[in-house]
């Protein structure tokens, strides 16, 4: 039974599941570093998926799909930034409300614009092409797993070290982390916390928009109501589990995606769907318990204590 469990196809599936989560989680991580508690990734991802589909349909171009997806993510992130940064609103309240708004708005616009409810597929929707890297993609196992991605898949992988470099080696990263840690201190040295926080939230809007684009044009070529299906929340957990460190966040996203892929595989091996469905969430809970030492900031934020 287990000889059928692990193979390249499983890893491909894991990577596909991981890419949107990772993109969103990287954005959430930048926000966390800038001191903005960001739980609106679910909504930004969903809006991104819808807009990417719409853009690709209207222009028959996946490139424009990406632009639309990013724009939608950014628009919601601006609402979040305005509410939390400019108006000092509660980020948890705003995050939850924006997630539900995105769910409602995409569900509203789908029939109003495209005349269908539920799912919209059309040949005009131009998907993101896979771009196998010649040579590398032929390597057994890792070739098909790593070197046969959409442009956003490659981007997600490259962003992990790039964001690490940005955060921990560049002046901008130093300032961003400073803003997140002590906004007043940053301000007194002429670094505007507002600007950096806006920047971070908008960056997460871009990344979550890309995550949604990957969902609607990369992993699939269609839009379905609520198609983000909790992935944005998983990204929140990944940020927390990875303690806002790029490589650890990558690991956390991978863990969840792996558990999900494994769950699909185990179902094929006869395990009831009810059990395999819960697997990624149980694995995440266990990982949280194992890594529980330092969630103090989140705990303080959410308990007022």
């Amino acid at each position, binding site marked *: 039974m287990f000889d059928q469990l692990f193979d390249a196809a499983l890893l491909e599936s894991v990577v596909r599941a991981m890419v949107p989560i990772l993109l969103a989680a990287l954005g959430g991580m930048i926000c966390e570093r800038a001191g903005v508690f960001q739980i609106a990734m679910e909504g930004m991802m969903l809006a991104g998926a819808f807009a990417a589909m719409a853009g690709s349909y209207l222009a028959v171009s996946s490139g424009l799909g990406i632009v639309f997806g990013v724009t939608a993510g950014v628009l919601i992130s601006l*609402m979040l930034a*305005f*509410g939390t940064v400019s*108006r*000092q*609103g*509660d980020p*948890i*309240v*705003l995050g*939850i*409300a*924006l997630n*539900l*708004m995105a*769910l*409602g*708005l995409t*569900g*509203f*616009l*789908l*029939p*109003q*614009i495209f005349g269908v*409810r539920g799912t919209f597929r059309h040949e005009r929707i131009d998907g993101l092409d896979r771009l196998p890297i010649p040579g590398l993609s032929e390597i057994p196992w890792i070739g098909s797993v790593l070197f046969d991605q959409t442009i956003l898949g490659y981007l997600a992988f490259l962003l992990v070290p790039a964001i690490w470099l940005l955060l921990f080696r560049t002046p901008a990263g130093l300032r961003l982390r400073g803003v997140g840690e002590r906004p007043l201190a940053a301000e007194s040295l002429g670094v505007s916390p507002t600007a950096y926080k806006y920047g971070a939230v908008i960056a997460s809007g871009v990344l979550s928009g890309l995550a949604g684009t990957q969902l609607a044009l990369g992993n699939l070529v269609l839009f379905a109501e609520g198609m983000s299906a*909790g992935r944005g*929340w998983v990204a*929140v*957990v990944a940020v*927390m589990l990875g303690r806002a460190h790029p490589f650890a966040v990558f690991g956390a996203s991978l863990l969840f995606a792996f558990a999900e892929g494994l769950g699909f595989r185990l179902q094929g091996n006869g395990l*009831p*769907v*009810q*059990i395999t*469905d*819960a697997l990624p*969430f*149980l694995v*995440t*809970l266990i990982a*949280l*318990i194992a890594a*529980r*030492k330092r*969630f*103090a900031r*989140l*705990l303080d934020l*959410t*308990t*007022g*204590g």
Partner: protein
Amino acid sequence: MAETQPIQRSGVAARIEAVLSHPVVFSLVFAFALGWVIVYLTGNDPGFAYREMYDGAITGSGLRNTLGRAVPIVGMALAVSVAFRAGVINLGGEGQMVMGGLAGSLVAIYTPGPGEIVIPLAMIVGGLTGALWAMLPAFGQTRLRLPILITSLLLNYVARAVTGYLVRFHFLDDSVTLTSTQQVPQTARMPRLPIFGGVSLSLVLVILAVVVAWVVYRRTVAGYETQMAGFNGRFARYGGIQVERQTVGVMVVAGAIGGVIGTHMIIGDAYRFIDGELVVSGLAWTGLLVALLAANYPPMILVAGLLFSGLQIGGLAMQRNADVSWRLAQVLQALVIVAVASRLAFDLFRRRRRGPTSGELESAGVGEV
């Protein structure tokens, strides 16, 4: 904390301004105005749509359905607010509702006896199950320092799987084509009252629960201590309040309310526990929005719960008759909260900043204590 009006204006203008200055009122106006624009931009007549929504919510069978849907919305809002008020961010209402709903309905289905005994028993078992389920994230936070915000959310998915598994493999009614338990026998169904065309007795219970919450909040040591912990956990701890124990306590109460509501949804509404059905409505999430809009203030929970219920039922009528998707209701609900949380206020548009406490979402409870 009323703003002093700097200039006396004519009566009506001043009155309108005063009403609009209330952040919740302003946010409602803002959300509906934005909704108007959205409907207009998608090529429909917003005035007609809103009229259909309004009529649909309060006329014909709409009124009963609005009242009926308000039961779980108000109930889940109360469950959320009991925890939120004490500073405990419980996003696990869905899981607590589902777990309690299954346990309660199994009692109703399999316990022989008169309704006077079976119905309360089902509610109690449902409530206890919801409470037990809520204790998992509570102890996770107090013992393992895992934020309830995250664990309660993750446990929702686990609860769905657990109930799905139980129904599919242990309590399946194989005479129907769904993954479903047997039907709740007639005797064990929540009675309906001969008002508004037959609303469930649960409506009365839920109103009672809101009143009880209000009295407890205002009049009891527990109400005081939970609010103090919600305002400032370190202050509460310093003052001798056992915040950890209290966290478990409010989660137990929240979970119990969720479980009772879940039970009501089966024995008072659907009459069968169908795998996944309790989740699709997003009632726990609507309840959460209501609790946020009401700033945990019980009378306002009732008002906001009825409002959101009406929006959803009316939205359905709008979709039927004006061909504008009922999802608009969902958008409006979320927009109201976004506006309130962003402290959008009338003053903002007069380019004069308010003091930091005005329009503050959380502060609506301050006057209470």
